[in-house]
Structure formats: C-alpha cells, structure tokens
C-alpha cells in the first residue's frame, strides 16, 4: 500500500571539512525531503556554519558526498553547472542582508537579477515579477525603485528573501536569517517564511542558535557540537526530550520556549 517514495531532495553522507588539525565538521550525514525544514543548532564554533557553507557550495569539503535530487553528485559537478544550480534551484539567505543584497542597486534590480541571470530579457516582465515578489514579502511595491540602504533591517531581510525566491528554487539555505533583528520583526519574518515554505513547497536548511526559531520553523532538528552531529530527530522531540548530554545542556540553558 506504500506509494513509491520519491528520493530525498538532498542526500548528505559523511561530509567532513577540517581546518588543518581543527575539525570544521565531521562525518555529517542526513537526508532532506521535499517540503521539509531542517534546523541545525549548536553554539558558536560547533561547525554549523562550516556545514552550511560546504552544503551550499561556498566551501569545498575534504570528503563526503552531496547528492541533489537523487542523481546529481554536487561535489563532482563542473563549476559552471554548480553555480547554475546555486542560482536557479538553490538559494542562500545570509544573516546580514548586506552580504546577500546589492546595496547600490534598486529593490527591483535586486529581485530581477536572478531572472536576468537565468536569461530574462523583457524589462516589463522582469519588473512585473519583481513587483509581485515585493508584495509577497510585504514590501510596498511603490518602493521598487528605492535602494536597500533606505530600508529597515527587517525589510532588507525580506528583500533578500524575495531576491532569492524569485526563480522558484527548491532548496533554500538560511544562515541565522532572524539574527540581528528586533523580536517583533523576527516574528513577522518567521510567519512569512512559514507561509512561503508551505505555498512553494520549499525545502529549507536553516542554521541558527535560536531554539525558539527552530521550534516554530523546523520539522526536524540536528544538534551539532565540536563539528559533529550529536543528536537529530523531530524538532519537538529533540527539544522536549533531548537524549544527548549536550542537547540537554543546550535546552536547559535557554529561557523556556
């Protein structure tokens, strides 16, 4: 009675990256399926950012395998194909919008860049799509010709999300997307992300040290310490009934969420 299960969107096996003798991340394995949100938590230096960089293709791992969509060996791809994958099917949302936006380019240009990179050559259509995306991330379309410098931190982050999602990627990497934002602005962003994940069927890998964020956003959780995954499972199970000593410490160290 079981329907044929589609293969995982992303399969990661034994991914390792060292910095000299120091471990960045070691022997990380997991599967990510369509529509799933995977949270990666851990303290600073736990290797979660290194892992994210290796997964997103910003940093070459020393060893391991990353398979996209059941067949594509990401680490063996020629660079051109890998970069094409990164700007069409994948997206990366940086903690600091300055790293993910072109601050000297208008909001419309920022959103349109990925479309033009994918070959769009009709100004009117590019602009219409940019307008639509500004609305979707709750930015007044009247601001389409303003530069992100004139935007608040929360708006910049929403613009970065629009810029990333305009080409309809299937996998989004997020590095502390709510870091540095006011609590009320964080909430708005979380709500927005949840809606986008549901409506677009996005798969997301989100790195954060904020357990409240993963509680509300992530389906599954991986806990990292010293470069290794010490525990993974259903988000509320890991937070409510942590098994590993480190996770218990982590959960008991924060205010009740």
């Amino acid at each position, binding site marked *: 009675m079981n329907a044929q299960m589609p293969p995982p969107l992303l399969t990661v096996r034994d991914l390792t990256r060292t910095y000299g003798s120091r471990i960045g991340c070691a022997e990380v394995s997991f599967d990510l399926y369509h529509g799933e949100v995977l949270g990666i938590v851990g303290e600073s230096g736990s290797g979660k950012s290194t892992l994210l960089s290796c997964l997103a293709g910003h940093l070459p791992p020393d060893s391991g395998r990353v398979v996209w969509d059941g067949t594509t060996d990401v680490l063996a791809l020629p660079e*051109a194909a890998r*970069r094409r994958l990164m700007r069409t099917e994948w997206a990366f949302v940086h903690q600091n919008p300055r790293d993910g936006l072109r601050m000297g380019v208008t909001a419309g*240009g920022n959103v*349109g860049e990925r479309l*033009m*990179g994918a070959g769009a*050559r*009709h*100004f009117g259509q590019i602009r219409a799509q940019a307008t639509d995306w500004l609305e979707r991330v709750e930015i007044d379309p009247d601001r389409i*010709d303003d530069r992100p410098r004139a935007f608040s931190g929360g708006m910049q982050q929403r613009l970065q999300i629009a810029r990333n999602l305009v080409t309809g990627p299937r996998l989004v990497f997020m590095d502390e997307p709510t870091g540095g934002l006011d609590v009320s602005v964080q909430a708005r962003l979380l709500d927005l992300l949840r809606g986008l994940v549901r409506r677009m069927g996005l798969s997301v890998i989100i790195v954060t040290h904020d357990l409240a964020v993963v509680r509300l956003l992530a389906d599954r959780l991986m806990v990292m310490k010293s470069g290794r995954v010490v525990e993974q499972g259903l988000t509320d199970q890991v937070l409510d009934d942590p098994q590993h000593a480190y996770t218990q410490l982590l959960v008991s160290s924060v205010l009740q969420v």
Partner: protein
Amino acid sequence: MTDAAFNFAYLDEQTKRMLRRAILKAVAVPGYQVPFASREMPMPYGWGTGGVQVTAACLVPEDVLKVIDQGADDTTNAVSIRKFFVKTAGVAVTEATADASIIQTRHRIPEHPLTEGQILVFQVPIPEPLRFLEPRETETRKMHELEEYGLMHVKLYEDIARHGAIATSYAYPVRVEGRYVMDPSPIPKFDNPKLDGNPALMLFGAGREQRIYALPPYTRAISLDFEDHPFRPTKADHACSLCGSATSYLDEVITDDRGGRMFVCSDTDFCRSRREAAE
C-alpha cells in the same frame, strides 16, 4: 632614433614581444581581456598609456598614423601622442582617416568607414564592463569564464527603472561573437553599430588596468538590450552647423555666455573633408 641597432618605435625588444603576444592572444579570443605587463610611458595614466603601448607594438616604418581625441586631431592629447610617435618612430602622420594605416583614438570611431588592413587602437580607462556592480576582480573573471552575464542587464535595468530608458550613452557594453561581454571604451553608443562586423582590426589597450583586448575584422559585436527596450544609437537631433551633415555624431559647442550654442561634427577630419568637397 631609428638606428637599426635599436628597436623601432620606442619600446625595447622584450616589451614589444610581450605586447605583441598579448595582442595576438586578444585577437585569437575576441572580447577576452588579456593581462599584460603595462610599462611606464612618458605620460600620466589616463592619457592613453595603454593605447600608446598597443600602437607602438603594432607600428612598422611604412605605417601612416592618425591620432584623435573625441574625434578631433587637434586637441592636446592627440597632438602630443602624434608628436611622440613622430619623434620616437619617425612614421608618417595624417589627419585623413582613409589615408591612415593605424588610428589611435580616444572616445570615438571615425565617421569615414574603415577598411580592411586598417588598425584602430582604443584608449581604455576601465576595461571591465562588470566592474560597475561587482568590485571583486576574482568574481568578475569567474563571471566571464562561466558566461554569467545577468549582472550586465541589471545595470541596464537600473537605467530604465531610474530614467525610463537605457540612459547609458557611452561605454555601452557589447556581446562579442555570443561569448564575452566587452566594454568598447567610452565611445558614444552612437558608434556601437560600427563595432559590429567592421573590416578593420580593433585593439583596446588599458594601461593602468593592464589589459588588452580585441575585435578582429568582421567580428560580431551586439549591443546588449531588452526585448521591450531595444538598443538605439543616439545623437543630438541637429545637423552640423559647419558641414550640414545630418548623420554624423555632434559635439555641442557653447559660443558665448548668453546661452549661444552650436552643434558641430565631433570628427574634425570628416567635417573638414565635407566642407572642402562642397567648395
């Protein structure tokens, strides 16, 4: 100066060899920016040091040289570069486009159609067309390598968003043979159509940035645009006040301090020959 014991045209043997290799490579890979070891020239950067090195590397004693700046043969920059080569190479010089075998230019392509066998050398301040939006050289090289040229259109998008039309009026980027995107140096976009399929060899030298690139004869060079905002070469909507040409590129000249102005051909040779023919 032209004693056989010495190299012809200012440069020492090794420099000339290095430059010619770079030029050959540039011709072999149209639109690709070839790095070269730019030398100190006896003039400041921004005064055509790149162009002078390319011209010096190409010159042979039989050449007839023309030098223009903004289309004019008689401006300071043009005059001093022409004098430099008269002194160091002893070549013949001319102001007539049709008589020149090598033309060094800043900011214009002559109006008189170029022919096979002619070489046009451009002085280039910033060879990298992507620099406007991407300051990292490592990244722009990668973008050229992988033909990731979406950013070029972001620049044009920004123009239309802000000005309602593509406001870039000079240094308008072209795609060369469907491969490299190239900055044609700060020529007016009016001149861009002349880049495409031109019978002459076009060489571009950037001294400070240490890059040489080329458009070999009859190379395709298409100006970037949008389907709904096609490329349009533009010029001032006047005829030349001196020769009456309605088709040549015009400079606006202020004639007094009461708002008086006139439009004249920027190409002085073209304008003069039309006036002479009319007489």
